[in-house]
């Protein structure tokens, strides 16, 4: 179940990162909003991982090299602009992907039909914040620019075809680029021009090659579950 793992791990890992914001958000409304997004993603992850096996075994007992998420979602939160840049890149991708899955006839149709409504909100949330941070103050503009810059390199991987997901990946990438370009432009920013991972390391996260912070994230996420082998919670 390569596809269920890939999409499920994306949702699981990003949900975890967003959960790290709890108690640290810049304003109370964002405590609620970020937790909402994290909960939506966790719900998606549970459905997807359950298609591939036991959700808890998959989440808590796999080693780093067995996770199939893209590297983008495992990147640490950074400041709020960094998190919003990650949200923009991922939620636009996920929205376009789930729209296609929901319109298709494959095994993810039902899940995608439900999730696409959630993801539309995630996308709106990210886009509205990109506008405010990009076109807000000089400081927020600079922070937003740095966030987009830092994460740009991880966006190429999003469009490496996932086995079992039968869509036109090049068309998805084209739609993504024009959507992201438009938002970033309206935010008085420009997309970075540097290389994107897909161009030179095809599908690194999808093949189980992750970045250094991911191991520490898993150590924290898995330690309690692993400390009590066989226990139920």
């Amino acid at each position, binding site marked *: 179940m390569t596809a269920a793992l890939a999409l499920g791990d994306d949702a699981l890992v990003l949900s975890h990162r967003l959960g790290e914001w709890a108690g640290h958000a810049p304003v109370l409304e964002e405590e609620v909003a970020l937790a909402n997004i994290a909960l939506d993603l966790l*719900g998606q992850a549970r459905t997807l991982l359950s298609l591939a096996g036991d959700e*808890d075994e998959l989440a808590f007992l796999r080693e780093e090299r067995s996770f199939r998420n893209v590297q983008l979602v495992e990147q640490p939160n950074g400041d*709020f602009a960094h998190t919003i840049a990650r949200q923009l890149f991922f939620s636009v991708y996920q929205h376009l992907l789930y729209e296609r899955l929901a319109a298709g006839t494959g095994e993810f149709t039902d899940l995608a039909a439900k999730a696409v409504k959630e993801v539309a909100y995630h996308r709106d949330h990210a886009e509205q914040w990109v506008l405010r941070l990009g076109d807000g*103050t000089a400081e927020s503009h600079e922070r937003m620019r740095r966030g987009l810059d830092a994460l740009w390199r991880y966006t190429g991987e999003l469009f490496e075809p996932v086995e079992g997901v039968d869509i036109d990946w090049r068309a998805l990438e084209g739609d993504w680029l024009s959507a992201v370009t438009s938002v970033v432009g309206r935010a008085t920013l420009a997309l970075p021009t540097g290389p994107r991972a897909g161009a030179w390391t095809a599908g690194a996260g999808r093949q189980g090659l992750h970045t250094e912070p991911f191991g520490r994230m898993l150590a924290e996420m898995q330690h309690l579950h692993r400390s009590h082998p066989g226990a139920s919670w």
Partner: protein
Amino acid sequence: MVAVTAGRTAQGAAGMTEAAAQTEEAAFDAAVAADERIEPRDWMPEAYRATLVRQMAQHAHSEIIGMQPEANWITRAPSLRRKAILMAKVQDEAGHGLYLYSAAETLGTSRDELLDKLHAGRQRYSSIFNYPTLTWADVGAIGWLVDGAAITNQVPLCRCSYGPYARAMVRICKEESFHQRQGFELLLALSRGTPAQHEMAQDAVNRWWWPSLMMFGPPDDASAHSAQSMAWKIKRHSNDELRRRFVDICVPQAQALGLTLPDPDIRWNEERGQHDYGEIDWTEFQEVLKGNGPCNDQRLAQRREAHEEGAWVRQAAAAYADKHRAQGESPSQGPGRARPSDGSDTAATPPDHPGTAAPSAGSEPSAGPSPSTGPEVTAQSMEATT
């Protein structure tokens, strides 16, 4: 002030006559006596207003500080189901904070003003959150005991004389009672689990029991605000009365959990028809209240840090709103959401704040931190604090 009613305004700039003032006070007293609700535009004694602001602020602060000890375990929750429940619970607490700050705003006190007081250490939050969550079982103990004590305290507030507070409490109590059951269920799974899990649950109950009893406040003979609050029907039962009720609820529940309460003096008193319990260490209570608890500094520091580190974000939202208003654009929809939450694990979302609700037509972009004061006010008050 919001309390200037049309009737009062009609009295003119010279102010009310003494007779009119007496009439209003009599009307207020009669409304309280008849168990009617006092609403924001009704006349109310200044001391009543001040008491409510103090209590609602403390309650709101408790909700947002209370997120910390539980959020401490979100990233380590041992199953995905528990993780979803915990995340939804912490989110609910943020939502409760929002309702309560909004309810306090109906008395003419802004959220920013109250947050400033919290950050400056001039307003309190519940002392219970100055204890650390050391193991996963603490998440269950907080749900069962701390939320249980909170409900015992708060259910009577649903009949509080001040309307906006009473209505906020109806919603909050529903969610709290859900949390309490989840906490109980978490502890039950541990208690019936492996010996290590059972021990973890017992240890957590041992540590949280006494602080939970202290949540009802000082004994009746030492409670500074009780008598007046009861006369105003802000408060309906005494501290000791509620504490005793809580003990009576917990004793059979502890038995059902297969756990013991760390008080050898708990026993049924046939004559009173209630449980007796041991002496509470009021020195510890006073010390934690004074700021000497295990986590007082840590909790306040994290709160201040989140607020200070978020300042540039709030400033950006305010600047954006200003620019786009100046350009005469119709504001685009803010980072809101239009759909209701779904699924039993997900939080009920508060109805009317920017993070979760669709903005009403023609409203300002909703990224601003305060729904009722608007971004420019926020920017000013932020300046004042930094």
